[in-house]
């Protein structure tokens, strides 16, 4: 049914008066053009490496601040990070440029700064939803506070970390195109997108958007599968 709906939508798109907006056949043609060249693969590789690096750093920082947030001293720090979701990256680019040594580090730090508040918000919500009984079971078993933290939050919520990454990966993927525009010498799909936009090459722009969208869906599915494979109890 979904296939039929997609085909129907494409048909309406193709038959509607286009004007400047290219039809699906032209987008498909542009996609074929992109796929047959090497530039797309180099750009994708650059973007993927940057995204994964940013994800790893963001995850480490998120876990660090989230785990520490159960201690009263670190609670305000975690809450401040959550509020940083409302900071726009555009206004901080100059400060980050001063703080970083090259374009690569600038892009990475901007991405991490943009991702961490969203990861932290989601993971703190997971921690706050922890049923009191999980802590009480630890107490009845004679666990110390650190042992309880390890069992309930670190081990018990490990599967949720994957879910948080999966749900917030879209933010990282969305920001990659933005930060790559800041330092175009290293390439990446963001750079490619800006280049095609600059020359109003809409078929290629839309073809890239289709690719970005498809890859995002693949990551979403892949991370979901990985979670189910690593944590068998999530399937129950």
């Amino acid at each position, binding site marked *: 049914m979904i296939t039929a709906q997609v085909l129907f939508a494409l048909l309406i798109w193709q038959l509607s008066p286009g004007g400047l907006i290219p039809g699906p056949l032209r987008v498909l043609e542009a996609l074929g053009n992109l796929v047959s060249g090497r530039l797309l693969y180099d750009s994708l590789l650059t973007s993927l490496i940057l995204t994964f690096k940013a994800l790893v750093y963001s995850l480490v920082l998120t876990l660090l601040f989230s785990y520490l947030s159960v201690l009263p001293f670190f609670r305000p720090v975690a809450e401040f990070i959550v509020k940083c979701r409302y900071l726009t990256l555009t206004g901080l680019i100059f400060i980050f440029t001063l703080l970083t040594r090259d374009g690569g580090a600038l892009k990475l730090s901007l991405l991490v700064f943009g991702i961490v508040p969203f990861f932290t918000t989601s993971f703190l919500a997971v921690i706050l939803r922890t*049923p009191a*009984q*999980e802590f*009480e*079971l630890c*107490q*009845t*078993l*004679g*666990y110390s506070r650190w042992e309880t933290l390890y*069992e*309930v939050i670190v*081990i*018990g919520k*490990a*599967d949720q970390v994957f879910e948080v990454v999966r749900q917030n990966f879209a933010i990282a993927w969305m920001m990659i195109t933005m930060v790559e525009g800041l330092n175009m010498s290293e390439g990446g799909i963001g750079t490619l997108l800006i280049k095609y936009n600059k020359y109003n090459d809409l078929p290629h722009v839309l073809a890239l958007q289709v690719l970005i969208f498809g890859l995002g869906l693949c990551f979403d599915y892949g991370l979901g599968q990985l979670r189910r494979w690593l*944590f*068998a*109890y999530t399937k*129950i």
Partner: protein
Amino acid sequence: MTPYIKKEVLLQAKGVSLCYGEKCILRDVHFSIRDIVRPGIQQGQVVSLVGRSGMGKTQLFRLLSGLQKPTAGSITIRERKPAEVGDGVIEVWRERPVQAGDMGVIFQNYYQFGWRTVKQSLLLAARRNPALAGTEEEAIREYASRFDIADVLQHYPGQLSGGQQQRVSIIQQLLKGSNFLLLDEPFSGLDICVLEKVTELLLQVSLSDELKTLIIVSHDIATAAAISDTVFILGRDAGGEGSTLVREIDLIERGLAWRSDLREDKVFLDTLAEIKDCL
């Protein structure tokens, strides 16, 4: 009547009160549980704490488990500890306030860590018990076989039936090595067949050690009284706000303890009526 002696106090609640601001839930609760010794029989203690809904049973359960501190009064436990005397080591009784971890606690919904298999959960408990050092796996196999859960050791809690979850919870707390086992509404929501199995299981646990003491918090008076040696009734009196212990019934004195043919016994039925009158 079966000969027995009531020996040392194992647990004592003295003037226990629990208030939230101006509102008192429990007031001046006093009771003690003694080691009941039956010559020639290894027999623990089974005590029931009954009361109507809203009488603060669960609050008292939390105080007894050490998960919460009373506003006033104290709950102490006495345990035998080895002490060096001259060249030798003897066991002496030591009294101290109850703390979280002292009691084996079985919650009403038999909560277990959802991310641990049954075996992993049991291992976590067994590793807390110094008496099982090095023999944890063996102890788990033995308990699993005795309580008929050997085939679900690799399962997660979400894959177990209610009865299996209850047995896992009980084994987990037994493996931890505590002499006290505190059960919150263990008969709640069970059908008649499972109910019989559960009462049998609890009796089996009470017979496993002389000092094993089961404290059952329940509103199912008949089932709780049928396996207990003492019933404490929580209720309200004219003394003030909040619930307190209004009656203690010694079922041993009435010849109603350690018997399986109680349900039709007139004395037992009269005792149940007496308990209901106190509620």
